[in-house]
C-alpha cells in the first residue's frame, strides 16, 4: 500500500494528538488529578502510530504500556477522552474509572492490557488463535518493550504462533531500557529481532523514530499474516524521553542515564522530523502544520474538559462487575 496524502496526515495527527494527551497526563500527575502512576510514551510515538494507524477495527491489538498505550489507542480509533477520564478515575473512563490506567474498546479491537509486563504474549497468542479460527483475515498485534522480551511467556507464545502460523505481528519497542536497567544488562545481543530465527519467524529491525519506515515494515508483516503465512517480529529502535514513570529517577542502575542517548534521538523526534518531511514533500505547508497543531491542541483540551467533568465512578456498578451476566 502506498500512502495517500490523508494517510500521511493521519499518521501525523495520531502522533501529535497522542503527545498532547501524554502531556496532559503528565500535568495531571503533578496536580494529583491523575490518581495512579504514569509511564510517558514520548519518544516512541512514531513506532506506535506506524504500527496501529492502518489496522482494521476488527484487528486485535495489545497496546504497549508506554504512554499507557495512548498513541496505539488513538491510531486504532479509540477515545482519548475516555483514556484521560480513566486516568482521572472518572465514571466516563474507558474502564468506568475502576482501574486508573487501563483501556478497553472491543469495537476497535482493543481488548485491554494487563498491569504485569509480559502478559502481552499469552493474551495476543489467544487473540491470534481466534483470528485464525474466525477465518476473516484478521490480525492480532502484540506490542511490548525490550524488558518485556525477557519474560518466558515470549518463548511459549512465539513458538506456538510460529508453529500454528497464526496471523500475529509481534512489535518490540526497544527503547534501550527497562525501568533502570539498560538493555546491555538484560540481553546479550544487539537486536531482539534475532530471537525470531529460533522459531523460523522473520525478525525485522526498523528505525522506530521514522513513522514511515515502521508503517512500511509493519504493513508487510500484516499482509504476510493476513495471507496465512504466520507471524513476524518487528523491532523498532526508539528511546524514552522521560523517566520510567513520572517522579522516578532517570538512571541506569544507580548512575544517571547518559543524556547523549536521549539527545541524539530527540534530534530525530518522530513528530518534528515527520512534519519536516511532510513540508519538504509538499504534503503540508508550515501553515497547515500550525493549524493542525492548534486544532489538536483544542481537541485535547476539549477531551480534558469532558474527562474532568466526568462523574465519580459508580461503586454499585463496580460491585456488579465481578462477573459477566
Amino acid at each position, binding site marked *: 500500500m502506498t500512502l495517500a496524502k490523508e494517510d500521511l496526515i493521519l499518521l501525523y495527527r495520531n502522533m501529535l494528538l497522542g503527545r498532547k494527551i501524554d502531556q496532559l497526563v503528565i500535568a495531571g500527575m503533578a496536580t494529583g488529578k491523575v490518581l495512579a502512576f504514569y509511564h510517558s510514551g514520548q519518544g516512541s510515538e512514531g513506532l506506535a502510530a506506524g504500527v496501529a494507524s492502518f489496522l482494521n477495527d476488527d484487528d486485535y491489538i495489545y497496546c504497549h504500556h508506554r504512554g499507557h498505550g495512548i498513541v496505539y489507542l488513538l491510531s486504532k480509533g479509540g477515545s482519548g477522552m475516555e483514556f484521560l477520564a480513566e486516568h482521572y478515575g472518572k465514571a466516563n473512563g474507558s474502564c468506568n474509572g475502576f482501574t486508573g490506567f487501563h483501556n478497553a474498546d472491543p469495537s476497535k479491537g482493543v481488548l485491554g492490557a494487563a498491569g504485569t509486563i509480559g502478559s502481552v504474549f499469552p493474551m495476543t497468542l489467544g487473540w491470534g488463535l481466534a483470528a485464525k479460527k474466525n477465518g476473516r483475515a484478521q490480525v492480532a498485534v502484540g506490542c511490548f518493550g525490550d524488558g518485556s522480551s525477557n519474560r518466558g511467556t515470549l518463548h511459549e507464545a512465539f513458538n*506456538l504462533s510460529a508453529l500454528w502460523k497464526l496471523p500475529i505481528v509481534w512489535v518490540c519497542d526497544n527503547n534501550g531500557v527497562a525501568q533502570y536497567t539498560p538493555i546491555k544488562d538484560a540481553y546479550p545481543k544487539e537486536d531482539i529481532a534475532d530471537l525470531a530465527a529460533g522459531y523460523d519467524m522473520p525478525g525485522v529491525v526498523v528505525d522506530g523514530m521514522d513513522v514511515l519506515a515502521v508503517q512500511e515494515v509493519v504493513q508487510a508483516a500484516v499482509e504476510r499474516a493476513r495471507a496465512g503465512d504466520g507471524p513476524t517480529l518487528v523491532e523498532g529502535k526508539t528511546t524514552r524521553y522521560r523517566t520510567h514513570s513520572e517522579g522516578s529517577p532517570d538512571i541506569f542502575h544507580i548512575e544517571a542515564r547518559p543524556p547523549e542517548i536521549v539527545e541524539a534521538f530527540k534530534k530525530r523526534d518522530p513528530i518534528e522530523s515527520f512534519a519536516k518531511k511532510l513540508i519538504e514533500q509538499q504534503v503540508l505547508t508550515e501553515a497547515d502544520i500550525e493549524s493542525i497543531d492548534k486544532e489538536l491542541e483544542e481537541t485535547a483540551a476539549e477531551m480534558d474538559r469532558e474527562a474532568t467533568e466526568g462523574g465519580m465512578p459508580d461503586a454499585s456498578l463496580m460491585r456488579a462487575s465481578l462477573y459477566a451476566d
Partner: protein
Amino acid sequence: MRQLSLTGAINEALKEELQRDEKVFCIGEDIQAGTFGETSGLVQQFGPDRIMDTPLAETAVAGAAIGAAMCGYRPVADFMFADFMWIAGDEIFMKAAKWHFLHGKKVNVPVVFLAAMGGGFKLGPEHSQCPESVVMHTPGLKLVVPSTPYDAKGLMKTAIRDNNPVVYFYHKALFGLTGDVPEEEYTIPFGQADIKREGSDVTVVAIGQMVHFALQAAEKLKDKASVEVIDPRTLEPFDIDTIVESVKKTGRAVVVDEDTLRCGVTGEIASQIMEQAFDYLDAPVKRVAAANLPIAGGFLETEVLPQPQDVLAAIEAVLE
C-alpha cells in the same frame, strides 16, 4: 438408568457442548488421546482444530484459551494435573480472574480450566494437590468440584455456558466411579448444594472424594446417629444457606476437604457457619483436611491426606 463413569460423564458433556456450540473447543497437552480419558474420542468427531494438542507450554495453553475466550470462543483448557495451574499462575489467577472487572465489564472471558486433582496414586506433592482454596480465594474465578458422574456432566455443561472463567477440578480417585446419568439433556445450576444424605444429628459438609468418605462414615454410624451429608458441588458460587439451614437443625458440623488445612476451604466454611449459626452450635465446627505438609508419595501419602477413618472419628467427636 444408564450408567457412566465420572470421566465418561465429563467426556459426554464436552461432546454435547462441542456439538451444540461451534465456539466451544478443547485445548491442552495430549488431549486428543486424553491422559485420563476425559477428552478421548473427541478429535475423531470434531477434528484437531477443535481438540487441540499443544506443546508443553502452560502459559501458552492458558493464554490461548483466555485470549480466544475474549474473542467470543468458549475454550476448555485442560491442564492435566491441577498442580500445573501454578505454572500458569499469572494467566489464571491474575489475567482470567480479573480481566472482565479490570476492563469495565467490556470484555468477557468464558473459559473453563479443567484439571484432575487429588491423591490416591502416590504420585507425590506435584501431582496430588487439590488447589481448591487458592481458586476459591481468587475473586473472579468460579469453582466446580463434582463428586458423582451425574453432577460432573451437569456442572460441566453449565461451566461451558457460563460467561466467566470457571475452574473445574475432578478427583483422580473418582475417574472410574460409575453412576446414573440420564440420556436426556440436563444442566445443574451453580451455587446449589446437594444434600447427598439426609440426617438430623450432625451436618457434614464434604467436597469431591470426601463426599464418599462422609457417606461411608454416615452409613457406619447409622445406628448411633443420623448424619446429614452436604456436597456444595460449586465452591464459588457457594451455597452457604443450605448448610446453615442444616446446622440450625443439627447443631453440629464437620467440614471435610482434601486440600491443606491451613487457609483452606474448611476454615472458610467453618467461619461462615459460625458467623451465621453461632447460637445454634452445640460444639465447635470440626475440620478435617490434609496435614500441613507437602503430599508425600509412596506409602506415606495416607499419613498426609484425610482418610475415611479420620472423617468417621471427626463425626464421632462432634457428636460427643
